[in-house]
């Protein structure tokens, strides 16, 4: 369904990363994973270009609203789905400007729906590439 898209998953928990990778690869995505902020900045600059970033704000080495702002500045076209626990930080203005916010509850189906929605509806560039 989501063939040809490259998704970058950033989460501090290895099992969560792997689980999400497995789920998204089953949907046909190409998946990259990053464990922390530094890893994220490194992976995001590498080819092939990333179509979507799934970002947990609570990651070591540069996290929270700061990493989000840095990505927005460097890659303004890149859609970001915030996948994190609801805290004070999740109401930060930088978070509001992300493509979507999905509370981390363990419900993968909901996350997948949002990913599909963002990739197909909100990313016309990807659509054209896909066709």
């Amino acid at each position, binding site marked *: 369904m989501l063939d040809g898209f490259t998704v970058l998953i950033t989460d501090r928990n290895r*099992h969560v990363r792997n*689980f999400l990778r497995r*789920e998204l690869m089953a949907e046909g995505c190409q998946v990259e994973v990053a464990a922390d902020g530094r890893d994220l900045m490194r992976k995001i600059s590498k080819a092939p270009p990333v179509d979507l970033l799934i970002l947990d704000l*609570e990651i070591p080495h540069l996290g929270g609203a700061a990493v989000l702002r840095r990505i927005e500045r460097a890659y303004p076209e890149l859609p970001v789905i915030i996948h994190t*626990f609801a805290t004070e930080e999740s109401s930060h203005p930088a978070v509001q400007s992300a493509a979507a916010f999905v509370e981390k509850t*363990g419900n993968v*189906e909901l996350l997948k729906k949002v990913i599909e929605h963002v990739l197909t509806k909100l990313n016309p560039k990807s659509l054209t590439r896909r066709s």
Partner: protein
Amino acid sequence: MAWKRVSLQTRILLILVALVLTTLGGGLVTMWYTYRMDNLFASVIDTAVMGLQAAEELETALVRQKGLTTYYFLDGNSDWLNQLGHLNESFNTWLKKARSSAKIDKERSILNQIESEYIHYTYARDQVIELYKVGKRKAGAERHWEVRKQFFAIQGLCDQYKEIQKEQIRQARVESRAQTRFIKGLTLVALPSVLVLGLVLAYILLNQILKPIRILSMESGGMEMDGPLPMEMTALRQRVHNLIENVDQTQSELQQSRAHLLQAEKLAMVGKLAAGVAHTIRNPLTSVNMRLFSLERSLKLSQTQREDFEVIAEEVRHIDTIVQNFLEFARPPKLKMQSISPSEVVDMALQLLRHRLESYGVQVELDRQHPLPEVKADPEQLKEVLINLLVNACEAMGEGGSIVIREEEGVAEPLGRVVVIRVKDNGPGIPKSVRDKVFQPFFSTKEEGTGLGLSIAHRIVEEHGGWLSLKSREGEGTTFTITLPCREDAVWARS
């Protein structure tokens, strides 16, 4: 000014010293002058008066000698000579007295002159008398004329002496008058200065001591005081006493609150720690949830296996709820205040819980005369409180039962105007033994409770400036009462 730097005590002392010195000095000077005047009269006037008297007597004694020699010449009677001898003696006596009272050289030289002239005169007169006695009347009469000239010269000297005495008395009088003038002048200076010093002292006493005392007692007591000074002082003493008591009380309160603060700080630290732990637990828990979700999709399980699986899933969800509740309790979200009628919040909560209430088979009765006035509140948080109370009520009553929500307006001290929402159930009620504990965190009677619901609700209402209380009787149900302050600005905004 130098005067402004001088302390009040020194000022008063200085003025007092000046006052005393002026009065004392005036008195001493007056005494001294009185003493001097006395002396003046005693010495100068007395001697002058005595001198004058001596001069008078001297002259009298002299004048009375006049003619006696002539009388003797006429009748030769020796009585005249006897009389002359007496007067001669009297003259000499007075001359001695005059000499004793003579103080200045001029007097003395005149007296010396008088004496020598008198000696010459008596000598010449005695010769005349001798001439008469021997019958040389013609020669005697000739000398007699010369003697008469001498006599007049002495009389003139006596007059001069008298004048000197009179002059002395006049001088003494002038001197005494000058001294009197000096005393008068001194009094004229001293009296006003005593008056001025007294006024300054009175001003300082009134303005810088009594007035501050009055102001102090009014400020410390806060009530009007027009009584006399002793009453003011008594009142002031009373007030200072009260102040000291207040300070003592405040100090003990401060110590208590410090102890509370310490306790609160400890609690906050423990809470932070626990919240950190809870937050960390959430991460692997979510991972577990994800895997369970995945398993559920693909597993083909037997009846017992499915039961086991479902219990695991439910317990994991339960853990997640506990952790979430705890996190909410430990890191309360900031209130997002807005003007809203609590009635709207009640409606929202009922709307949200409609299905749940139906599933419990609970009847909800809303007792509302008219919508409550707007208050400053965070609707989301307030809704959380109501949901908590309603779900608690449902769980307490089990199947069936009824809940009455009553909205009221009223007045409660110290909040003033308040809005009140009562949630009343007809469940089994809360036993007296645990009634005080239900608002404490981690206290739960429910099998699956986290023990945080009511304590979160309690805290939210307190953060709104109100309070959450409960009334319960075993077997007759429980009433939770939310009281929220009705802020005046909210009332104005509504009107």
